[in-house]
C-alpha cells in the first residue's frame, strides 16, 4: 500500500513539475522581452519623449511625439478599413456563408492571412503611393487595414458560430426577418467576442514595420495630413535602432517600451470593459 501511494505521489510530482516547467519555458520569452525593453527603455522615458519631435544628430533631448500621434492616426485609418470589412465578411461567413461563395471568401481570407506583410506593403505602394505620387499616412493605414481584415473576419465568424442556433430560431420564429435577427440578436450576443477579435487584430498590426516602409515612410517632423509621409513608432524604432548613435539607440528602446505598453493597455482596457458587461447588450 505504502509503496503504491509513494509511487503515485512521485509520478504526480513529476507530472506537475513537467507542466509548471513547460509553462515557465513558454512564458520566459515574454518576460525576457518585457524585462529587456523596460530595463533599456525606461531611462529615456521623459516628458519630452511624449511632447517633442526628434532632434538632429548630436543634439540631446527630443522625443517621439510625432511618431506616437502618427501611429495613432495610421491605426485610425486601418481600423476604419479593417473593422467594417472584417466584421462584415465575418458576419456573412457565419450567417450566410454555408455555400460555395462562402467557401471562396473563407479561402481568400486564409490566403490573405498568410501573405507576408512586406508584400502587402509593396502592393499598396504600387496601388496607392505611385498613383498619389506621395508616401502617405493614408497608404500606411490602408496597408495595415488590409492586414486586419482576415484576422477580424475569421475570428468574427468563429464567435458568431458559438451563438446557439436556438437563439436564431427564437428570433426567426417571432417573424423577425433574417437580417434583423443577425444584426439585433446574433451580433449583440457575440459582441464581446467580436470586440476582442478586433483588439487582437489591432494589437497585431500596430507593431508592424514592413508594410509601413514604402507607405507611411516615416517623417522627422509633425504631419497630420492624410496625403503626407508620416512618422510611426515602429518605423522610428527601426530607423533609430540601425543608426550608429548611442543616444538614438536609447530612444529606440524607449519607443519599443511605449509601443508595447500602449498595446497592452488597450487590450487590458477592452478586456476589462467587456468582462464588466459594459459592452454587452449594446444593440
Amino acid at each position, binding site marked *: 500500500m505504502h509503496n503504491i501511494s509513494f509511487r503515485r505521489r512521485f509520478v504526480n510530482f513529476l507530472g506537475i513539475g513537467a507542466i509548471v516547467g513547460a509553462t515557465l519555458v513558454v512564458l520566459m520569452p515574454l518576460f525576457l522581452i518585457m524585462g529587456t525593453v523596460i530595463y533599456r527603455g525606461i531611462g529615456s522615458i521623459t516628458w519630452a519623449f511624449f511632447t517633442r519631435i526628434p532632434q538632429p544628430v548630436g543634439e540631446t533631448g527630443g522625443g517621439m511625439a510625432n511618431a506616437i500621434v502618427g501611429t495613432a492616426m495610421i491605426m485610425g485609418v486601418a481600423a476604419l478599413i479593417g473593422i467594417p470589412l472584417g466584421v462584415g465578411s465575418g458576419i456573412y461567413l457565419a450567417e450566410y456563408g*454555408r455555400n460555395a461563395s462562402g467557401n471562396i471568401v473563407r479561402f481568400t481570407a486564409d490566403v490573405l492571412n498568410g501573405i507576408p506583410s512586406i508584400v502587402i506593403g509593396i502592393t499598396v505602394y504600387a496601388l496607392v503611393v505611385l498613383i498619389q505620387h506621395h508616401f502617405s499616412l493614408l497608404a500606411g493605414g490602408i496597408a495595415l487595414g488590409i492586414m486586419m481584415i482576415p484576422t477580424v473576419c475569421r475570428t468574427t465568424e468563429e464567435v458568431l458560430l458559438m451563438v446557439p442556433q436556438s437563439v436564431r*430560431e427564437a428570433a*426567426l*420564429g417571432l*417573424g423577425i*426577418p433574417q437580417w434583423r435577427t443577425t444584426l439585433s*440578436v446574433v451580433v449583440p*450576443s457575440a*459582441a464581446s467576442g467580436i470586440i476582442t477579435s478586433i483588439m487582437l487584430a489591432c494589437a497585431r498590426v500596430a507593431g508592424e514595420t514592413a508594410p509601413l516602409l514604402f507607405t507611411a515612410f516615416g517623417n522627422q517632423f509633425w504631419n497630420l495630413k492624410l496625403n503626407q509621409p508620416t512618422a510611426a513608432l515602429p518605423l522610428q524604432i527601426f530607423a533609430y535602432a540601425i543608426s550608429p548613435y548611442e543616444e538614438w539607440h536609447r530612444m529606440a528602446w524607449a519607443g519599443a517600451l511605449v509601443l508595447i505598453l500602449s498595446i497592452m493597455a488597450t487590450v487590458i482596457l477592452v478586456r476589462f470593459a467587456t468582462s464588466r458587461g459594459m459592452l454587452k*447588450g449594446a444593440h
Partner: protein
Amino acid sequence: MDPGIRVQELNAWFGGTQALHDIGLEIPSRQVTAIIGPSGCGKSTFVRCLNRMHETLPNATVKGKVTISGLDIYGKGVSPVTVRRRIGMVFQKPNPFPTMSIYDNVAAGLKLNGFSNRRQLDEVVQRSLEGAALWDEVKDIMKKKSGASLSGGQQQRLCIARALAIEPEIMLMDEPASALDPISTSKIEDLIFQLKQQFTIVIVTHNMQQAARVADLTGFFLMGKLIELDKTEKMFTNPSDKRTEDYITGRFG
C-alpha cells in the same frame, strides 16, 4: 373566420432522408391538439412545417399544402416572415435572448419589426407577461434583469410571453415542458388550458400523460407518418389502430 390548420399531402426531407410522408389532417381552432410519438417519428419536423421553420435548417425541404385561415403558407409569393408573425412558437429548451432584459425579450418581436410606441409596448408587455402568468414574478425587475437570469420554468413562460406579444392566431409548442421540473410543468399546462380560449394550440409532447391532461385532440406519428388523429379520450381508451394501442400501452417507443 376559422384560424384552424389544414394540412394536405405534406412531405418533408432532410437532404435525401424523408422525414414526413404524405401527412394530411385538420386541426380545429381554439382547441389543443397534441402530437405524440416515439423519438425521431417526425413530430417536431411536422410542427416546424406549420410555420415554415423547417426550411431554415440546412438542406431541409418541404412539399405540400398547409392552409391557415384560408392562406396557403407555401403558396407563391408568401413570405415565411409574414407567416411566422401570425404563428407563435415555443421551443423545447427555453431560449430567451441572452443580451436582452426581460422586458426587451417580450417586446422583441414588435421592436425588431419597427414598432416603437413606448406606451403601447408597455401595455403589450404587461398583457403578454400576465397571459404567460409571469407578470407578478417579474414586474419589478423586468427592465433591469436579463431573461437568462430567470429559472428554467420562468424562462419558458417568458418565451411564451414573447410569443404572445406578437398576437398570433396559432401557438406551436415543441415539447415546451420537457426540460422543466414537475411544478414548472404543471404551471405551463395550466397556462395552455387558459390560452386555448384565444388560440389554436399544437403541442408536441413526449409525455403521454401530458397529452391526456391538456389536449382535446391527439395525433399519433410513427416513422414520419400520421397513424391516426382523434379525440384524446378515444385515442387513450379505444384507438382505432393497433400501433397506437401498442405505443400507448408502452409496448414500444
